[in-house]
């Protein structure tokens, strides 16, 4: 690969990141750093995936990120929706994760008691 190719990849990847790979309406990013995992992020991730499958939500994708430093709020997950601020959930459990899918993703009502931050996308 050459220097110019790097630029091409960047342009393409930027587009993809913005479009959420073109397919999904909602992206859920679960913090999968060691602290998150230590606090139970794996179970939370499983619950998200499971709930999405159960409800057959085709336009919701789940990805991972590293850790942001929010140890006291772990496990942490972010909800990205086109044209809306990013909603950051903290202190998640599998049960809350399922509630987030049901209330926020499906019905558009964020589960405010677990929102720790809302920020610009």
């Amino acid at each position, binding site marked *: 690969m050459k220097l110019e190719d790097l630029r091409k990849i960047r342009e393409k990847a930027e587009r993809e990141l913005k479009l959420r790979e073109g397919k999904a309406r909602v992206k859920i990013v679960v913090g999968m750093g060691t*602290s998150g*995992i*230590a606090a139970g992020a794996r179970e939370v991730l499983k619950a998200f995936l499971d709930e999405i499958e159960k409800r057959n939500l085709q336009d919701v994708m789940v990805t991972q990120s590293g850790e942001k430093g929010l*140890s006291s709020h*772990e496990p942490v997950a972010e909800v990205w929706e086109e044209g809306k601020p990013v909603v950051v959930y903290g202190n998640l459990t599998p049960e809350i994760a399922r509630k987030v899918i049901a209330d926020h993703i499906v019905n558009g009502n964020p589960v405010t008691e677990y929102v720790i931050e809302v920020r610009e996308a």
Partner: protein
Amino acid sequence: MTREEVLNKYGKSKDNLLYILHDIQDSNPRHYLTEEDLKEVAKWLELPYSYVHGVATFYSMFSLKPRGKYIIRVCESPTCHLMGASNIIIELVKSLGVGIGETTKDEIFTLELTSCIGVCGVAPAMMINSEVYGNLTSEKIAQIIDEKRRESK
């Protein structure tokens, strides 16, 4: 991986020693290095036996004694200590019926202490093999131990 496979995976360069010891130990269900292991590694890297022994005993992650299927390593660094690691240790000693550095009779658990494992934000914490557990409480420990015990059967 067998010992020979591990050795063949790495070149005969001395700087691979730690990797080789890690891999051999990891492929032993009892998580330790035998006399034979150290001798074969020494021969492979053309190092004196004593040298390999010196290295293996320097690092706290290596053991020359057989250990349990699960190695529980409780962090006893200042942060975890402040957040109640001592109670966690007492709890584990009680529920496993072993002292620090010992293995349960059923060879399932070995209880060890470790320095900081870098999840201080969720202290007190511990590792079981390579998994990390944070925000520990008595209840959580009981639950984890139960689960592991079930898994091992």
